[in-house]
């Protein structure tokens, strides 16, 4: 499903966080949003998810403004994975994932909701912990459950805000591999990531944000020393190994110049 952002602006208490952000993301794209802290990645994700509303600029899904779509219908097309859940409710894994079916039912889940939940748990290989308390899980398992909950919404677009920030390398790769296979099946993935190397490795499109504006956007060709140094204001070098390239931070820009 295609998502188009046009001249999006957003302010928190008068302070501008997003400024004239525009981009068009196609079905099945794996897009990473990268940029320094405070560059507006999370805000952009929340605006796209319809959690934050703005009067300046538009977000369209298949040419329909998201404001014109009923919230429950929007939730069937688009799922949001928050940055972190400080207060995870004391649910079983099954109930947590079943919560993702809420847009499809009113007062209690139906047979299809239960069936989809079971299928998602199996697909993500979480069936052995289905009846466990979410609090008893490791950080990686908990994050996988939150992604499973989003997948239970059967979305065409998945918006993820730093879903791997608290995970070790193994779990980061596991989560990103799941997302990659979803993208290959036509789900549009838009993910805010701090780890630039993971962003390069998995994305087919990268949007670099700086101080609320799109610094540059495109395929892997935009990963250049010049772009990254201007984006993060640090010295970097890029090392190529086979078909992969890796970014190595080399210290503060001014410090290195001295």
């Amino acid at each position, binding site marked *: 499903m295609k998502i188009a952002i046009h001249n999006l602006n957003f302010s928190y208490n008068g302070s501008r966080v997003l400024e004239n952000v525009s981009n068009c993301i196609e079905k099945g794209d794996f897009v990473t949003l990268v940029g320094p802290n405070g560059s507006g990645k999370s805000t952009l994700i*929340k605006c796209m*998810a*319809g*959690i934050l509303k703005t009067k300046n600029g538009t977000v369209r899904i298949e040419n329909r403004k998201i404001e014109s779509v*009923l*919230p*429950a*219908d*929007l*939730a069937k097309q*688009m*799922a*949001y994975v*928050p940055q972190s*859940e400080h*207060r*995870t*409710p*004391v*649910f*079983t894994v*099954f*109930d*947590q994932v079943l*919560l*993702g079916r*809420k*847009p499809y*039912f*009113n*007062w*209690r*889940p139906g047979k299809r909701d*239960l*069936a989809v*939940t*079971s*299928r998602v*748990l*199996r697909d993500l*290989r979480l*069936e*052995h912990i*289905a*009846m466990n*308390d979410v*609090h*008893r899980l490791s950080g990686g398992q908990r994050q996988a459950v939150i992604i499973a909950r989003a997948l239970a*919404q059967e979305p065409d677009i998945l918006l993820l805000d730093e879903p791997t920030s608290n995970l070790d390398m193994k779990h980061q790769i596991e989560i990103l591999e799941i997302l990659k296979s979803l993208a290959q099946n036509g789900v549009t993935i838009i993910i805010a990531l701090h780890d630039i190397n993971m962003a390069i490795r998995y994305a087919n499109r990268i949007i670099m944000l700086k101080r609320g504006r799109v610094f540059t956007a495109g395929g892997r060709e935009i990963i250049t020393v010049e772009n990254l140094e201007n984006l993060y204001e640090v010295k970097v070098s890029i090392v190529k190994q086979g078909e992969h390239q890796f970014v190595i931070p080399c210290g503060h820009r001014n410090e290195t110049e001295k």
Partner: protein
Amino acid sequence: MIMPERILEQYKQHLKRGVRFIASVSMILLTVVSVSIVVGSAEVGFVELYQLLTGKGTAFSAQIVYQIRLPRIIGGMLAGTALATSGAVVQSLLRNPLASPFTLGISGASAFGAAFAIIVLGAGSTYESSNDASAIDNPYLVTSSAFLWSILSVAVIILVSKLRDTLPETIVLAGIAVSTLFGAGISAMQYFADDIQLASIVFWTFGDLGRATWEYVMILGISLVPIMIFFHYQTWNYKSLRAGDEYAKSLGIKIDWVRLSGMLAASLATAIVVSFFGVIAFVGLVVPHIVRKMIGGDDPMTLPASAVFGGMFLVGSDTLARTVISPVMLPVGILTSFIGAPLFLFLLLKNTHKAYWS
């Protein structure tokens, strides 16, 4: 690999655990009700009760059972159910384990309303009964005043949260402010009251199911049942809010409406109970925690289980209150805390490995 059907089967088994808990508590409730009918200062044995049910009972036992004990028991069940369910809902909505409709100042406002009726509107204190140092000679005026003031307190809290934001923190803080304000109001009323008026106010603030009549039970039932059905219908919306406002919004849930309507319904239910029976502490705060400790934190069965447990707990406490130092009947509001606090402490110490709140 476990097949989806097998996962579903495991989930159904898991749900049955909650159903079994509700069934067990219902059995205890039935036992408590049976005992409650026969025990008390007037002797009505099981044999007499059987005779009564088969149409062979005496007029005296019919009077005791049908006019005094049954309205008291059914009123207690309804009140306990309403208080416990409202407490569970408010705790979920505000994501605060210390929240209950009482935290929002409803009991304070209600007690102030009763004091206002007794002192300013002259609804009590002029009559002295043989049993009580003082009594209320116009209970309907006291009840109406208590109800209106508690609704006013709810309106103030909802207005403040609408003008500012509907964040749980704002609602809790507004509730504490309103509660303190009415606490000061009660103190002022008591300061200006004469001895008999003061005794009437104190007597009213002790929660007591002895005020129940069939008329009260009818009004309670008609007003509380729709609220309980509403809560049941909203269960999954409340569960979504427990996962965070932003996430709930992303599911298409109108979080402000869900939170405010839930708060209003919980406050209404509590205001109705408090205005009829006085302040019955503890049930709304601790029964949901006891249930969560027993069946798991945010189990889908938490609300119905709290409802049944609340009814059982209040009727059980009242039965004990009527009999523990018979023929003197203690107000149930005193007993609920005496029973509930040790029970809850015991449960807190037991199963410490099991998370039930976050």
